[in-house]
């Protein structure tokens, strides 16, 4: 089975994010494969280990995304990386990115697509759903369990209240992956060495039959702001009884949690 994985490079979850203008200050930020996409890569690799086939990574971005995707994708079982890079995509919205990915995935002839349930930076959760729509395939979102026999699938989703939903169907389909689906493997040195020589297929919009107009943004980000600074903690004084009374009063009337 030929599986495509949509992967995005995002700031490391431990990075200190500072808003600057309409974006973030990227100085000193370590870039990694989006943690949810790492689950997608692992599930795809596990699937081809069980059923044969190959895993192909797809991303939109400039050359800076290649190294993190080699380390977090090609070194853990991805066969190659398709990097869609075009000046017209610099300001693309989710739909523009989805159009580019869908066109490239279609041209590659993949039979299933895995992606993270969201990216830890943008958190819009839109792209995989749009890719599914553009490919005309079903979408199973927020998957925490996955089985396939190569032509049909059974996916598990945890829905509200801990209820587990099982979704069955036929491939091709798009799956978005959640924490709990698997534990992404460690990249090992021999594979890291091999990943250095794996192919990066660079595509511009023309190569996948799209134009700048096709990916022109319909929505733009207009403002970013940081969360309000947390107010300083308050120390209560008085006897234990007085402090307890004051604490209950504050929790009930000020914090309104009681």
């Amino acid at each position: 089975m030929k599986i495509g994985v949509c992967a995005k490079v995002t700031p490391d979850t431990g990075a200190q994010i500072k808003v600057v203008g309409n974006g973030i200050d990227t100085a000193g930020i370590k870039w990694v494969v989006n943690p949810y996409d790492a689950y997608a890569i692992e599930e795809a690799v596990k699937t081809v280990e069980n059923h044969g086939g190959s895993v192909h990574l797809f991303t939109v971005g400039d050359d800076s995304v290649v190294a993190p995707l080699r380390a977090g994708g090609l070194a853990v079982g991805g066969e190659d990386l398709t990097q869609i890079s075009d000046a017209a995509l610099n300001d693309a919205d989710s739909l523009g990115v989805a159009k580019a990915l869908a066109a490239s995935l279609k041209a590659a002839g993949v039979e299933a697509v895995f992606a993270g349930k969201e990216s830890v930076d943008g958190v819009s959760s839109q792209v995989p759903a749009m890719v599914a729509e553009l490919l005309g395939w079903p979408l199973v979102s927020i998957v925490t369990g996955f089985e396939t026999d190569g032509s049909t699938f059974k996916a598990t989703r945890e829905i509200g209240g801990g209820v587990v939903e099982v979704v069955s169907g036929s491939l091709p389909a798009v799956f978005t992956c959640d924490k709990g689906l698997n534990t992404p493997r460690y990249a090992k040195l021999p594979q890291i060495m091999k990943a250095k020589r794996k192919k990066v297929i660079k595509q511009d919009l023309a190569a996948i039959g799209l134009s700048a107009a096709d990916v022109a943004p319909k929505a733009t980000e207009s403002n970013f702001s940081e969360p309000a600074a947390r107010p300083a903690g308050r120390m209560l004084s008085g006897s234990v009884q007085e402090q307890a009374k004051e604490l209950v009063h504050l929790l009930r009337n000020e914090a309104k949690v009681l």
Partner: protein
Amino acid sequence: MEFFDNLLDETHTTVRDMARRFAEEHIRPHAEAWEESGTFPRELYPKAAEAGILSIGVPEQAGGSGGGALHQVMVIEGLMRGTSAGVVAGLGSLGIGLPAVWQTERADLIDRYVRPCLTGERISCLAITEPGTGSDVAGVRTKAVRDGSDWVVSGSKMFITSGVRADFITTLVRTGDDPHGGLSFLLIEADRPGVSVSRALRKTGWWASDTAELSFDAVRVPEGNLLGEEGEGFLTLMRNFQLERLALAAYGVATAQIALDEAMAYTKQRKAFGRSLSRFQITKHKLAEMATAVLTARTLTYQVAHRMDAGDYLIGEVSMAKNVAAKTAIDVCYDAVQLLGGMGYMRESVVERLSRDARLLPIGGGTQEIMREIIAKEMGL
């Protein structure tokens, strides 16, 4: 952008990040408990093997993952993020225990001893120092005498990392009278009659790593356990010392870096006289000095590792890197404890542990004084 882009390629940074992830997932949450208990679970070895960490630096022909000195530096730096040098030393005892074994290129020894260590099933250690001799290797007295097709070994070994639970001991023994030419390496299985752990030693630092005094009482070892040729022990030892010393430099760099990070974090949140400690000039200058020292030590260590990987046989420079990094670790840990004040003196703080662990670095793998002797010799003095 990495500051060391010219030395580190993505194989190095990926190895470092993987080792760090392993340390954060499997070591850091248990570091305090393991340190206090003086050991760590044996299951950590197969887990580290599964993560591909144990086999780095061992050639692929010997069942390893390949990789060079700089990759090994990365592994140590990554693993040290678990904040327990003892765990790193325990896991890493194969780094000193195995080279003399795989360097024989003998398939029987590689299959029986090297591969099981790389999968974490067996534990190896290196035994050089004795109760009566340390830096003066020519003074080794543990004796191996031929008797039929066996060697009979008698003597004792001291300060042996992983010696308490090692399955086999790569042992430097005296097989002849020549001070240097009479030394050989023997592989001695720990379950052979006559091998015993005299005591588990209590140390200033590296608590989670077991350290043993071992005793050999007329232990019969088959002649096939001789590693390399008879009388080659000293040369093998000297060759492998370079990597051990580089590894200790890496411990120093990592120790100092973590102490600096801890001091940075603490002085930012700790307030005195109405502002953060980090906003006082005296703190800022102290942290600036610490950061400068860490970068200096790291630069020298990486450069030496890089040149070793390029094929240079460095002796003086490795000794310099070890001394610089050891001193940096001790100084930066001292300053970090000072910046944390009372908290820095408490067992619950990481810098307290690091400052104890760092004390080993100018002693283990060749003292700083022996390093200076080597450097002076290389200078033609």
